[in-house]
């Protein structure tokens, strides 16, 4: 699929909760090239953390597996795909309901998908029982114009000038 996006990266790691911090920091570092605000970056880190945690504790549970992350940049939109080959979700619609959790014993709140939905622009979840789950999220990074200044050129026409 080369050529369709402007930049991409792929990441694979063991399904250990100790990798959650690594995963969100790695995605944030890659996305930094779009010059996001601290808020935009925090939104992305939170959403990545939620999806990765789901893969580790719900997808694989006590078994060990691999979590994959793919990030693509299309001009100023980022697309993040987080997938596992775990046990899958029986009913995605129910799993996505706020406060629904299959693991209340782990003090899970059931807010993971709701947070992903609220912090990203778009989310799509595909899952097949016994095969795994894939979460695709998109977010547009607003281009910054603070360094640009509206100036008047000699012939009186307004134009943007980079300072």
């Amino acid at each position, binding site marked *: 699929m080369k050529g369709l996006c402007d930049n991409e990266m792929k990441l694979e790691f063991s399904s250990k909760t100790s990798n*959650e911090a690594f995963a969100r920091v790695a995605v944030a570092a890659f996305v930094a090239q779009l010059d996001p605000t601290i808020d935009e970056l925090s939104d992305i880190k939170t959403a990545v953390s939620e999806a990765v945690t789901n893969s580790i504790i719900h997808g694989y549970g006590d078994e060990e597996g691999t979590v994959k992350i793919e990030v693509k940049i299309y001009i100023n939109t980022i697309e993040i795909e987080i997938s596992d080959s775990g046990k899958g979700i029986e009913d995605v619609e129910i799993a996505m309901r706020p406060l629904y959790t299959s693991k209340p014993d782990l003090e899970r709140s059931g807010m993971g998908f709701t947070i992903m939905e609220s912090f990203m622009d778009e989310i799509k979840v595909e899952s097949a029982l016994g095969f795994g789950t894939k979460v695709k999220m998109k977010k547009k990074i607003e281009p910054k114009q603070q360094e640009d200044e509206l100036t008047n050129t000699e012939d009186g026409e307004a134009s943007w000038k980079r300072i």
Partner: protein
Amino acid sequence: MISEYVKEGKTLILRITEEVDQHTADKLRRKLDNEIEVYSPQKVILDCSGITFMDSSGIGMVLGRYKLVKMLGGNFEIINVNKRMKKIFDMSGVSRIITIIDEEEEENEGVM
């Protein structure tokens, strides 16, 4: 985590100084519960000013400690919650159950 017990008023102040995700929440709740059980305080203040990252794992962590403190007959309060944490607590309904005191906006304006 930094824990401070103020004898006067039997208040236990617990300041979390790490990122809160599923990985750290496990250890954190054990440490927090231990402190709460040791002092059996009348009031527990959870200070969030040292939290640099929190995902939904923070919801369960906070609610679990709230339940424990209530069970022991104490009061529970959360202070120094930033905008993002507030949003997560509002979305999950935590703010309707637990007293949350935000970071003072005026103080932080221009610093952020």
